[in-house]
């Protein structure tokens, strides 16, 4: 009796397991899940979901994480389970290469070719999404980095957006004389901003070589950049890096007159009811080295990806294709007050519109943001290092040696 019950239970369990298994036929989906590490943007993703439902009959439900590390761990773990997102955001550079090598990401070469032909994506953007001659993911967004400045403060002291590095320093000096801190910087997360800006504006080739392990953080060129950075901190141009005031508030209340961020920072301004061209404006940061042929501009693009083993690969591809269209990109850019990856989209904000047009026209040397360009273990050491440096500028040599140690270990196993 007991044995027969056990057998019955065992059979029932096996049947249930088989029913819940993953050997199922591909499903036809009408709503896709989109996992992302931009929890604060849920409102904008929801709006995109409503629009896509209307336009292509495919809804989208976002799940936003606010901690990037937790998000990445979740996505990596999801590759080994049946709880897979339909679509997910990621990073370009080594992070994308890592998951493409593991054959986890769906090929989007056809989407790219068609979008470039239709003028929906720029050819210049393709290298960031190309691995082994094929494209993976599509640009969820693009952003150009420059300087947001408080126009009223500039007006008060008769200052104008600088065209050269010397002009920028003159602006900083004038502000200093008047008791205003020129620049924002922080010891948390975005501690790399001034490093990448000074490196890219001094020697962009060296910057690129650093990112690929072909140059060392202890090379004289890098040391000089750190010394330059130290001289700016010593001159008293920066606010205290321990100030945790939101950079949007820093700019609004004039704690610092200038904040260097990507164009997505524009959303912070509009959310604070600041008017572009009146309360604040944006300029491209001039090169430190005036001899460089083009102004270096930090650039970032966040990929929107689909998994190779997706529940409904056709629906995912359809959605990614739609995401590149001017209809989708226009909505995405206008709702967030940001620039767009689609060159056809006109940007309402005058300054950002000009930057987008110039960047698309090849006027700048686009330099991949440090966050994407640097492999995670080196990035972690570098963020810690820069965070120490901004609070103890005298520690720059020790900081560079520590980052190089992490780089040596990483590249010895990955070259």
């Amino acid at each position: 009796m007991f044995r027969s019950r056990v057998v019955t239970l065992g059979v029932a369990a096996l049947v249930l397991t088989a029913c819940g298994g993953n050997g199922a036929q591909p499903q036809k989906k009408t709503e896709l899940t989109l996992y992302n590490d931009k929890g604060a943007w849920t409102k904008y993703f929801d709006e995109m979901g409503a629009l896509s439902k209307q336009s292509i009959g495919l809804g989208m439900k976002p799940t936003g994480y606010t901690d990037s590390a937790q998000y990445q761990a979740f996505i990596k773990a999801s590759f080994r389970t049946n709880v897979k997102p339909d679509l997910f955001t990621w990073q370009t550079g080594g992070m994308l290469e890592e998951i493409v090598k593991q054959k986890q990401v769906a090929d989007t070469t056809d989407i790219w070719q068609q979008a470039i032909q239709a003028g929906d994506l720029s050819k210049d953007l393709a290298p960031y999404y190309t691995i082994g001659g094929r494209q993976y993911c599509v640009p969820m967004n693009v952003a150009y980095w420059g300087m947001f400045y408080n126009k009223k403060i500039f007006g008060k002291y008769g200052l104008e957006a600088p065209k050269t590095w010397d002009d920028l320093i003159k602006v900083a000096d004038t502000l200093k004389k008047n008791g205003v801190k020129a620049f924002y910087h922080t010891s948390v997360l975005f501690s790399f901003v001034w490093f990448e800006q000074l490196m890219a504006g001094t020697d962009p080739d060296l910057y690129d070589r650093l990112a690929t392990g072909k140059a060392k953080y202890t090379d004289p060129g890098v040391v000089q950049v750190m010394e330059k950075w130290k001289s700016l901190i010593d001159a008293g141009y920066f606010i205290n890096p321990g100030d945790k005031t939101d950079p949007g508030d820093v700019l609004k209340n004039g704690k610092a007159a200038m904040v260097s961020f990507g164009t997505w920072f524009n959303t912070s301004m509009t959310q604070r009811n600041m008017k572009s061209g009146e309360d604040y404006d944006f300029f491209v940061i001039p090169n430190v080295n005036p001899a460089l042929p083009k102004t270096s501009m930090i650039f970032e693009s966040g990929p929107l990806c689909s998994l190779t083993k997706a529940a409904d690969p056709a629906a995912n591809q359809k959605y990614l294709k739609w995401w590149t269209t001017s209809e989708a990109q226009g909505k995405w850019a206008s709702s967030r007050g940001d620039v767009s990856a689609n060159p056809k989209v006109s940007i309402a904000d005058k300054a950002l519109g000009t930057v987008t047009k110039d960047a698309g026209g090849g006027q700048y040397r686009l330099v991949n943001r440090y966050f994407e360009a640097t492999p995670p273990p080196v990035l972690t050491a570098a963020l810690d290092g820069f965070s120490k440096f901004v609070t103890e500028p005298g520690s720059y040599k020790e900081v560079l040696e520590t980052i190089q140690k992490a780089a040596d270990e990483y590249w010895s196993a990955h070259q």
Partner: protein
Amino acid sequence: MSGARRRIGPRGEVLLGRFGHGYVAPAVLLVAGLLYAPFLWTAYLSFTRYDGLEPAQWIGGHNFGKLIEDPALLTSIRNTLLWVVGTMVLPVGLGLLVAVLSYDIKGGVWFRVPFLLPYALSGAGLAMVWSPILSHGGIANTLLGVDTAFLQDAPVNTVAMLLVWTWQQLGVNMLLFVVGLQSIPREPIEAARLDGAGGWQLFRLVIWPLMRPLTAVVVGLALVASLKTFDIVWVLTQGGPGRNSETLAVTMYKETFVASDYGYGSAVAVMLTVVTGLASYLYLKRQVAS
């Protein structure tokens, strides 16, 4: 029990003896699956190079060698020890003080309420509340009229975070001590008072020894909690600037999930487990012996 046996009968008893362990099997499987298996898996990963994607590659004791040479680890250990000592002095010590002072006085219950309220906040929520207070140019600077970045210089930042921790944890320690005080029989205290003992003497010679079992629990819990300090540090400083406020738990998290070095992160986890286990064992052994 005998009634139950009668209902089961001799055949039932045989079956219970043969298959009785089956009743605890779900619990055993749950514990093994959710606690022991991940622990063993982490121990295995600590001997590998693993980025969370490519197959783990066995590299022997390399991660532990790296751990010993890592100067950041020394800082982590120093900060963790500071948390342990600080926790004993502040949340536990002050908890005891408040419990004793508020015990047996009129309105003592109301006196204790404000100390208990912060315990309702999570560690992360607590840190969010204190971040604008402690940041440079923040509320603390304004109120105290100083220009100190409380979250930057070591060990000031760890001490500042300890004070935040105290603000939250003092209440629950106080509550446990009050329970301990209330469980002490009145007779020995009254007898001591008749013998002329009072104040500090009464506390040291009568109350404190009688509260010993409860103190062992409070200190034990605080010891483990301080060894695994993570959320407050992560939200307030992320272990920085540099790595000067990292604790072992923060180091483990950063190496594993931020740097995607799962092997090295696992080695830190193993070390943290050994340290916590050893500290708990030594403490409990001492308590049992005394």
